[in-house]
C-alpha cells in the first residue's frame, strides 16, 4: 500500500521556483490499477519519481508498505527500488550495448542473485512478454513495442509489488500500444499494483480509477471543470 500525505516538491533554480508537486495526498491500495492523467508539466512524472524513491521531497510524508520512506538513506532506498518497484518509461530506457538478456539481468545482478536463479527468472519473464527468442538481440534490433516489452520484462524479473509506468505507450502505434497495455493489465491481474501515467483517456479507462493531476495537485476533475466554468462566467459578465 502506498500512502502520500501532503507531499510537496519544489524545484529551485537561481531564476525560478517550480512547485512540481504541491500538497499531494493519495492512497493506492495493494493490487490497484491507477491511471494518472493531467496536462503537460502538471507534475505527473515528478509524482512517479517520488513514488519510486528516485526523488526526494520537501514536505509531507510517504509510507510504502507501511514503512515511512521519507529521508531514508541511499542504500535502503536503492534496496526498496530493487526489490519492490518496477519502472517503465515512455522511451524504454534500455541500455543500448547490453543485449535483451543482459538488460533484464541488471536488477537481478544488483539484488545479488546467483547465476542459475537469474537465468531462470530472465527466461521466464522473457517468455511472459513473448520475447524468449530475442534474448540475444540488442535493443536497436527490436521494434518499439518489443523494446517496451523488454523493459516490462526487466521491471517484472524482480517480482515487484508496484509497477510505475510513465506513459508506457506514448512512443508506440495503436496496435503495439494495445499489446503493451494488455500485458500491463495481465500483470495487474496477477496481483501487482500498477500506477500508470497516460494522456490517453481510452487507455485510462482500463484502470480501476483515474486520478487527475493539475498544477501538482490531485484534483477532483468534476469540481475543477465546474470551477473553471464559474471563472469563465465571471470573466464574461
Amino acid at each position, binding site marked *: 500500500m502506498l500512502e502520500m500525505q501532503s507531499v510537496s516538491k519544489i524545484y529551485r533554480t537561481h531564476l525560478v521556483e517550480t512547485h512540481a508537486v504541491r500538497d499531494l495526498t493519495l492512497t493506492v491500495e495493494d493490487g490497484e490499477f491507477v491511471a494518472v492523467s493531467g496536462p503537460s508539466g502538471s507534475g505527473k512524472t515528478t509524482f512517479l519519481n517520488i513514488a519510486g524513491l528516485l*526523488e526526494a521531497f520537501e514536505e509531507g510524508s510517504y509510507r510504502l508498505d507501511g514503512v515511512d520512506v521519507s529521508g531514508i538513506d*541511499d542504500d535502503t532506498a*536503492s534496496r526498496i527500488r530493487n526489490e519492490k518497484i518496477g519502472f517503465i518509461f*515512455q522511451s524504454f*530506457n534500455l541500455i543500448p550495448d*547490453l543485449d535483451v538478456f543482459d538488460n533484464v539481468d*541488471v536488477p537481478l545482478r544488483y*539484488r545479488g542473485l546467483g547465476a542459475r536463479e537469474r537465468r531462470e527468472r530472465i527466461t521466464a519473464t522473457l517468455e511472459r512478454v513473448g520475447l524468449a527468442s530475442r534474448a540475444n538481440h540488442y535493443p536497436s534490433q527490436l521494434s518499439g513495442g518489443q523494446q517496451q516489452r523488454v523493459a516490462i520484462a526487466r521491471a517484472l524479473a*524482480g517480482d515487484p509489488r508496484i509497477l510505475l509506468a510513465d506513459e508506457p505507450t506514448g512512443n508506440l502505434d495503436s496496435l503495439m500500444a494495445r499489446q503493451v497495455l494488455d500485458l500491463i493489465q495481465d500483470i495487474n491481474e496477477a496481483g501487482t499494483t500498477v500506477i500508470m501515467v497516460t494522456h490517453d483517456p481510452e487507455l485510462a479507462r482500463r484502470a480501476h480509477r483515474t486520478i487527475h493531476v493539475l498544477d501538482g495537485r490531485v484534483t477532483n476533475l468534476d469540481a475543477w471543470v465546474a470551477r473553471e466554468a464559474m471563472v469563465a462566467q465571471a470573466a464574461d459578465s
Partner: protein
Amino acid sequence: MWRYHFQTALKSLRRNPWLTSIVIATIGLGIGVCMTTLTVYYLSSRDPIPAKSDRIVAVRLHNWPVGESPTGGDDPPFELTYRDAQGLVEQGFAKHQAAGYNTDLVIHPEDEKQRPYLTEGRLTTPEFFPMFDVDFAYGAPWTKEQERDRRMVAVLSSEANDKIFGGENSVGRQVRADDSSFTVVGVLKPWKPLPRFYDVNAGAWEETEEVFIPLSLSPVLEARKGDGNTSCFAEADGDTWQAFLDSECVWVQFWAELTSPADLDQYQSMVEGYVASQRDLGRFPRTENVVLVQDVMTYLRDFGVVDDDARVLLGLAFLFLAVCLVNVVGLLLDKFLLNPGELAVRRALGARRKTLLAQRLVEVAILGLGGAALGLAFALAGLQLLRTMNVEEEVSHLDPKLMLVAVGLSVGSALLAGLYPAWRGSRIPPARYLRT
C-alpha cells in the same frame, strides 16, 4: 559482483575506444617516464651488501695540510696512502680489514692457441674475501703468512677460471699474468656486487676483477694502479715505485668490518690513535676533520655514486606523472559524465551509489593496468635510449621488483585520478537523467 563490475567496465571502455586509448596513453606516458628514471635511480642507489652494509666501514684519513683537500670540501679524501692502508691492516683493529687497489693485467691462457688478453686484477689483503662474504667454488683465500711472505699466489674469479681453465678446479695450477706466474689457491663463485662499492674510484659499474693477488706484492711487481684517480699534495721523493708507495699520495681503498654498528665510535678512536702515532713521524699536519669512518651507504652517498642530477630527474619525472594525472582526471570526468542516462537507469533498477562507484573504480583500475603495460613498454624504450646515451647497462634494465612497483604505481595513480570523476558519476540525480 566484482565480476559483473569487470564485465560492465570492459563494455564501457569499449564504447569509447578513443577516449580509453588516450587515457591509457596518458597514464602510460607518465608511468614510462617515472619508471625509466626510477630504474636508474633505484639500481644506482641500491645496497650492494645488505647483510653487512651497516657495519662494513671505509676509513678516510686527512693527511692534507690545513685548508687543502682533494675532495672539494674539507672532508678527507676517499682513499688512503699505501702506507696508511697497510698500517691499518697491520693494526687489525676490526674483526676484518682489507686494503687494495685495481690494476691492469695481461693474462696468458694455458692453452697456447688462445691469445693473451688484457683484464683487470686486484691487489688486496686476504680478509677481503670473508669480509665481503665472497664464496669460493674451489680452494680458499691466501693466508696471512702468504701475504706477509709475498708469495706468488692468486685467486681467480669464476669468469677467469672459465676462460683460462675451462671451469675446472684449478687450485694448485699456474696462471701467467704479465711476466709472472702465480699459483692458484682459490676460485670464486660468480660474484658481482653492484655498485662495485669496494672500489667506486675505479668505477662503480665495472665488472669484478678477474685475478686477485696479495697486496704485499705491489713493491715487487711494481703493479701500477689501473682505473681511478690518484691525488697527491706533494711530489713523491724520487721516481721509483717504492718512493711512490712511501709518498703522501692517496689511491688505496681500505675497508673494515666491525662486529656491530655500535662499535663505530670505538673503532674511530682506535684509528685516531693510529693517526696520533703517525704524527710523531711528522705526518698529518691538521687536527680537525682528520679521521672519517663511514658505513657503505654513507660512503657511496658521499662519493656521489648517485648524483644529484638523478634525484632532480626523479622529482621531475614524478611531476610529469602528476601533470598526466591531472589530464586523466579531466578525461575521466568527461567519460564518466558522458552518458548519465545509463547511470540513471541503473540507479532506478536498484544500484546503490556505492555500487556505481565500485564499478567505476574497477573501470579505472583496468585503465591503470593498461597504463602499466604501456608504461613498462615506454620504460623499456626509454632505458634502451639511455643505453645508447652511455648510461651504464647495469643500471638501465627493468628489475622484476620495479615492474611490480610500476603496476602498483599505475593502478594507484589511475584510482587517484579516477576517484573524483567516479564519485561525481555516482551522484548524478537519477530523476533528472532518466528519459521519460
